């Protein structure tokens, strides 16, 4: 933390303004950042460290933040970069990304217009809350990230693209694939709980 200084000297008036912006616009997002950090690091202590680092960086560069704009997206971007720079690189056991399991994984928009996993509505009664969280946490981090940003935090594609530094088409295709992988996981879980998808046998009977 020794390098924690603003990029240029600030006077007392500026310092007070920065403190006010920090308290009023940045700190209110700490719970959302904390949840996001936890789902990235999968560890309570690492998540707290990541949140703290995010806020220290945010304050250091607070002169780059335009008061009254999208503080939440700005903070999420800082947190994501901090995670990539520090935690992923330093981790002795980096998040396992088994791309062999993700058939045809590509980040092109066009590739998103492929097969999609459909679910039976009954499945939603079978899957338990813990299993949803476990399934999300078992996704490759790139997939986990877009699901959390879009489906949990409600960011737009445009905001997610800015947070992740990727084109909007990539956000769309990544979301599509992430949701399909998640559905496959939930479906597999539901099947172990006795749920069976009878649509195929039913449609075969209809064809006969």
């Amino acid at each position, binding site marked *: 933390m020794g390098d924690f200084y603003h990029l240029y000297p600030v006077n007392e008036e500026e310092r007070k303004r920065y403190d006010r912006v920090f308290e009023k616009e940045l700190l209110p997002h700490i719970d959302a950042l*904390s*949840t996001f950090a936890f789902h990235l690091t999968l560890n309570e202590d690492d998540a707290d460290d990541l949140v703290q680092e995010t806020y220290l960086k945010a304050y250091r560069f607070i002169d780059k933040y335009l008061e009254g704009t999208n503080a939440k997206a700005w903070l999420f971007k800082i947190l994501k970069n901090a995670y990539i720079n520090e935690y992923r690189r330093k981790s002795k056991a980096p998040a396992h990304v088994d791309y062999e399991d993700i058939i045809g994984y590509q980040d092109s928009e066009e590739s998103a217009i492929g097969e999609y996993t459909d679910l039976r509505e009954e499945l939603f009664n079978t899957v338990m809350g813990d299993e949803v969280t476990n399934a999300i946490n078992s996704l490759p981090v790139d997939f986990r990230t877009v699901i959390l940003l879009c489906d949990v935090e409600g960011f737009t594609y445009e905001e997610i693209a800015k947070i992740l530094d990727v084109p909007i088409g990539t956000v769309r295709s990544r979301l599509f694939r992430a949701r399909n992988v998640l559905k496959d996981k939930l479906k597999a879980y539901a099947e172990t709980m006795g749920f069976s998808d009878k649509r195929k046998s039913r449609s075969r009977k209809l064809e006969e």
Partner: protein
Amino acid sequence: MRNPDPIHEYHRMVNMFLDHQLNDEENQKVLHQAQENPEFQRVLRTEQNFRDLIKKNVVQRPHVTSRLIDNIRNKISSQGDGK
């Protein structure tokens, strides 16, 4: 290569619809298609349920402790004082 299957295309639109990426006219079209076609209606309902399932069940961490917030404030304050 684009898949010509109308269900796939509708599913793509449903994703955009639920992600608030369509304009008003496109939103109306998605809803109208669901009213007109039971299969489309099922796609829309199932996708909506899937999104709800995620939102309702993803573990939210409890409120951040005042200790962590105080730590952040103290570090900012102490670093600032050292300038």
